[in-house]
């Protein structure tokens, strides 16, 4: 269980809230680069951390992320005309550049300086990999750009998708560090999903449904190690890194691409699940990339032209009781992503954690909540920069390794959980 006042702190991310201010210390995904595919592309409406914004790529290729609403009468700039280095409100023609600066007010005299005094709130928007990243905090404290490996490898080695999840970010994120659900909820996928199946490690997973856990601090967050019996005298370890506040990676399987997530608050009752797959040393095969586009692995099959999954709350996630009965889809819903989202959304928009009955196996979640709360209150009360802001903290990988039973997992696998450019992931 979690006390209500702590749950409130962790789940509220609007401006001025402790967790909202903490999220505003980081570069976070704002949207996919594919949403603004060319110079002068149509603008994109998006809401982040409870703020309504519009993203655009002007005719010169500059990215902007500005207040959605025109300073004049409050019309949405999503209707704006993206023309000649700025976005123009079609209502009365006010025009803004990518910094939010108003550059033209047609009703004013040609030599008027009125526009100079009009500026919308704007945040930086930077393309790294397949993602456009923003920083929504104090410009004076803007940290260095993020250095996540999935975003830095060559384009042919990486793929990122996103989906709308209709619940608070925290309950979605908590699924990312909850190793014990995989053996049940995703058991069908271990056998059949093209991006999971065939790894030797899957058999360890399926043979041992009661893993032991170790939860170890890292500079940026945590490493959660789940250990299962392997061959005589050895353990199979699946190591999940969490970098604060919202980055998780899934331990790899065989030579499949390695994957992970960012959980980004839209508002307090919705979030974006960004899901990535990459391979550090080779291009994704055509079959792998197609499987990701088709919604396999950690990705979802979305309604064309949107980032809403085809299987969603409004159609009971296309529940299939027959496949649930046979175990092909353990919960009766198809695919890793929807298996997670359906159950996490079923908890309600913001789950009431005062009602939980946690077990020791939930210690990773307990510890993560504690670290988030400590960091948010340390920032609020003492101005302490939270873990995960420093790009050095981004240089992590998940790992799946077989170790002698007497070895401490983070001692034996200390290099396996670091980014080693040009080196493959440690995987079984």
């Amino acid at each position: 269980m979690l006390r209500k006042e702590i749950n409130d702190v962790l789940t509220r991310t609007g401006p001025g809230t402790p967790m909202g201010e903490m999220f505003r210390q980081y570069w976070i995904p704002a949207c996919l680069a594919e949403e603004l595919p060319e110079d002068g592309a149509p603008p994109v409406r998006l809401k982040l951390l409870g703020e309504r914004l519009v993203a655009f790529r002007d005719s010169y290729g500059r990215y902007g992320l500005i207040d959605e609403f025109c300073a004049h009468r409050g019309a949405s700039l999503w209707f704006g005309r993206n023309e000649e280095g700025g976005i123009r409100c079609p209502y009365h023609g006010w025009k803004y550049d990518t910094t939010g600066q108003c550059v033209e007010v047609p009703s004013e005299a040609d030599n008027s300086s009125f526009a100079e005094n009009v500026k919308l709130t704007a945040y930086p928007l930077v393309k790294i990999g397949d993602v456009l990243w923003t920083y929504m905090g104090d410009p004076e404290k803007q940290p260095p750009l993020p250095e996540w490996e999935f975003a830095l490898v060559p384009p042919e080695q990486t793929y990122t998708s996103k989906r709308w999840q209709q619940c608070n970010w925290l309950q979605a994120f908590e699924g990312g560090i909850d190793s014990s659900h995989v053996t049940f909820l995703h058991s069908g996928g271990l056998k059949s999903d093209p991006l999971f199946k065939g790894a030797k490690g899957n058999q360890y997973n399926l043979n041992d449904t009661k893993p032991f856990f170790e939860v170890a601090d890292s500079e940026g967050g945590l490493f959660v190690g789940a250990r299962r019996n392997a061959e005589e005298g050895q353990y199979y370890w699946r190591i999940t890194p969490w970098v604060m506040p919202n980055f998780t990676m899934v331990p790899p399987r065989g030579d499949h691409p390695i994957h992970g997530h960012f959980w980004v608050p839209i508002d307090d009752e919705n979030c974006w699940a960004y899901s990535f797959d990459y391979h550090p040393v080779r291009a994704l095969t055509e079959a792998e990339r197609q499987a990701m586009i088709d919604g396999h692995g950690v990705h979802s099959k979305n309604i064309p032209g949107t980032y809403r999954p085809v299987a969603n709350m409004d159609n009971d996630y296309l529940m299939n009781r027959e496949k649930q009965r046979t175990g092909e889809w353990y919960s009766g819903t198809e695919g890793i992503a929807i298996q997670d989202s359906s159950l996490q959304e079923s908890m309600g928009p913001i789950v009431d954690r005062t009602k939980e009955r946690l077990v020791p196996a939930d210690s990773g979640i307990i510890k993560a909540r504690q670290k988030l709360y400590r960091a948010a209150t340390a920032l609020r009360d003492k101005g302490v920069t939270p873990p995960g802001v420093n790009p050095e903290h981004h240089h992590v990988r998940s790992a799946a390794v077989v170790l002698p039973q007497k070895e401490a997992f983070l001692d034996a696998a200390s290099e396996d959980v670091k980014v080693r450019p040009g080196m493959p992931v440690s995987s079984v």
Partner: protein
Amino acid sequence: MTVALDTSLPSSCARAASAQESRYRIDRPIAPSRAGRIVALDDGAAEVVARTARLEWANARFYVCASADGDDLVLRGIDGGPATLADELASASVVVMVATSDSGAGCAYALGKACWERGIQTAGLVLGNGTHSGTAAAAAVAALRPHARVLLPDADELDVIDILTALRV
């Protein structure tokens, strides 16, 4: 078989997850779900467990491991009173072991074995954070690893409190 959506009955489909529908969730007090036994495995841990025991708990009892010889373990209550392992585990549903060094390795073995035989869940916290040497903490982790279903190697005193709170002991 695919279930068709009946929009006239929001409570009968996944839309029941809305904030509005959440009002209808059964709201009754939750009884403590775990009878917790918290055991300090060494003297350093005993100080922390003693302080933790002074807080308000619903269904937790606190002990210090006095000695261990193979499967035989002698416990005493945190207040110094005698305690019998078999009696204390009879009604326990989770045992949380707290250590600062490997001096309690024998206790961890005996306690872990007794819990395993009785199907009692175990957790272990190794207190580090500069209060004890890294070597001692590492040795404690190694000693606890085989016997704790969940292990927190870099824990501090607040972790002990937070884990017990989350478990509702």
